[in-house]
């Protein structure tokens, strides 16, 4: 078991100074360590997934009363006639008359595989029954699927922005400690975290309206919605990404800058750096090749956390900026207690985060040899 990355001492490994280290290590790594390690990590993915599903199912069960009666009551107040057969079939589909743990198993089973002879398969032609969203009047997965691609795309662009912007700034700040640039970067980072996202979004929208006459609300122009995104209007799309990127991106950059900077400062004062410097290795090589590689470690392991905070941050911002991603759908689902839809979205986002953690662990195992030799896992 490796200790949590925040607290463990990272890398003073003399291996970093050996010649040809990376090539041999890489080859050996690819031979057996990596495969073993990945298998181990993927196996650990399964219990995590199970726990997430339990948590999500718990959230689904939270509102008082059961889902189907609430839905039928809502239909009845709208004056619609609900016949008893329909109600009974719904109750059966949701397994509402079973004990809670059997409901959970049924829910998971239906998601993994719905048999061909079930009513759901005949209706929607899908083997994965995520249940029905009453708020949208469609099956849950089709609602989730609608915005999944865009959500992943937007999150990925913002993630990329965060790392591309914050890591060079952090390296600069640590090599120029207490310089004006160091203070400015710290200040901007702090402001990014200190102002809640939604307010920053409103302020930027207002400024954009004052300066350009266009508040840049939403990710797409009317024209894009009609013709789809092509190369010729991709620039427009990027222009509309500016505010979301600034708003959601800046809230995370501060954390990354701070952790990389602190780690870099730790590393440059360590013995091996001194040795390298004494041997006449250039300062640039020391910083880029040795210190940076060690300092990036906690940031890589924090990838999961950054992803999850991106999803959090984008939810509120998306509502203010009217972005067509999953956040607002989730909010709407929760407001009208369309719990199966909400659960599905939370589940999808959590799985994406866990996949992010998986990736970060693999990168980490490559960056820090001790992790894969000690058997891996967190």
């Amino acid at each position, binding site marked *: 078991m490796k200790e*949590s990355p925040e607290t*463990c001492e990272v890398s003073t490994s003399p291996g970093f100074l050996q010649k040809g280290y990376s090539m041999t290590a890489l080859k050996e790594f690819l031979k057996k360590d990596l495969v073993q390690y990945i298998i181990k990590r993927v196996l650990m993915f399964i219990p995590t997934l199970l726990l997430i599903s339990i*948590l999500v199912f718990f959230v689904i069960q*939270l509102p008082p009363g059961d889902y189907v009666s609430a839905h039928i009551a809502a239909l009845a107040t709208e004056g619609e006639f609900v016949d008893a057969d329909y109600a009974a079939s719904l109750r059966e589909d949701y397994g509402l008359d079973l004990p809670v743990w059997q409901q959970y198993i049924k829910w998971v089973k239906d998601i993994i595989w719905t048999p061909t002879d079930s009513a759901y398969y005949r209706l929607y032609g899908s083997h994965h029954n995520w249940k029905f969203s009453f708020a949208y009047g469609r099956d849950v997965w089709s609602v989730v699927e609608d915005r999944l691609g865009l959500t992943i795309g937007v999150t990925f662009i913002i993630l990329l922005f965060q790392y591309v912007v914050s890591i060079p700034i952090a390296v600069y700040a640590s090599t120029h400690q207490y310089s004006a640039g160091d203070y400015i970067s710290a200040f901007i980072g702090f*402001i990014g975290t*200190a102002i809640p996202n939604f307010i920053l979004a409103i302020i930027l929208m207002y400024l954009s309206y004052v300066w350009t006459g266009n508040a840049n609300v939403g990710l797409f122009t009317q024209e894009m919605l009609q013709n789809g995104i092509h190369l010729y209007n991709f620039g427009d799309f990027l222009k509309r990404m500016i505010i979301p990127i600034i708003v959601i991106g800046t809230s995370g950059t501060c954390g990354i800058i701070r952790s990389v900077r602190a780690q870099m400062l730790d590393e440059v004062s360590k013995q091996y750096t001194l040795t390298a410097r004494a041997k006449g290795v250039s300062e640039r090589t020391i910083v880029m090749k040795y210190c940076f590689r060690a300092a990036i470690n906690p940031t890589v392991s924090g990838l999961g956390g950054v992803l999850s905070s991106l*999803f959090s941050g984008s939810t509120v911002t998306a*509502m203010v900026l009217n972005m067509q991603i999953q956040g607002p759908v989730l909010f709407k689902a929760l407001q009208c207690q369309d719990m199966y839809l909400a659960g599905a979205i*939370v589940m999808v986002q959590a799985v994406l985060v866990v996949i992010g953690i998986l990736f970060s662990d693999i990168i980490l195992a490559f960056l820090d040899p001790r992790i894969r030799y000690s058997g891996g896992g967190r």
Partner: protein
Amino acid sequence: MAKKLKTKEDYYLASQWTLMGRKLKKHKLAIAAFIVLAILYLGALFADFLAPYSLEEYDGIYRNTAPSKVHVMHEGEFVGPFIYSLEKTINREDFSVTMSENTEEYYKVKFFVHGCEYKILGFIPCDLHLFGVSEGSKGGSGAKIMLFGADSLGRDIFSRVLLGSRISLSIPFASAFISLFLGITIGSISGYFGGTTDIIIQRIIEVIGAVPQIPLWMALSAAIPAGISTVKMYFYMTLILSFINWTGMARIVRGKFLSLKNEDYVMAARLAGVSTWKIIWKHLVPGFMSYLIVSLTLGIPGSIVGETSMSYLGLGIKSPATSWGVLLQEASSVTDVAANPHKLIPILFVTITVLAFNFLGDGMRDAADPYK
């Protein structure tokens, strides 16, 4: 010479906390942040006294008005700080409303005036307010001093910011302590016993960390029954926030336990026959308490912003209870902000508080680091 020896001796004899305190004092930004926070919390404690009006006191004429202008000179002569009452004129052609000051009569700003009743610290009845305006120079009434302007119902934003800070500043604080407690308990179980217990707890932590926070908050607070009392709502919010925040703390505690439990001094204590619980509480926990307090300080700003976002979405604190997030609901769209920029004032308080906690936490982290 003797003095130098004395200070050196002091240095070696000083406890960990004394050393931390000394280092913290050198960190100017952290001290400034601490003072700012102390002022904010004192402000929250005596909010009723400092605020000229109560939460619900409103005046229709003042709807959406900009901050009151405090003048000193009336018709060329000095009268001390005063304000004019406002007059509403409606343009008959396009029905636009303009507010103007009625300069005939002035209302002096007085200190220690009697106003609405409240209870100091919740039990001493009182009706004294730090400042306010009473009757005008010609005996008129009806002017209100609104330092930060008024909201859409004509309520004083200054009073509401102060009174709202009681909730906004205390929920994150209370939940931070609950998460500290949960974190130490669960983290130490996980780190000390290891094995299967450890694996299970680690998975649970990983899962709670993997589920994006705001959706989880939203989901949990969607389960808060509607129409419950303010106190209960407050209680639920605190629980929700701490339910999500304890994981980070538990991971730190576990990591520290793992690295410290094999240290020589722990082994020495064990050989000397010290009991397990005494080793944990006397020798292990003090070893990383400072880290915990630092991460506690750095964790509070996240909860403050979170509480604000949730209240803003209408999921957290709801009217009539008031927090900064509830105040910011008034600034929920571009048109609102463009027409009434003064409604963004509460954001200054959120920002200042978050920055202050961050600076204080940074300073404390430096102070707690024995290698610096």
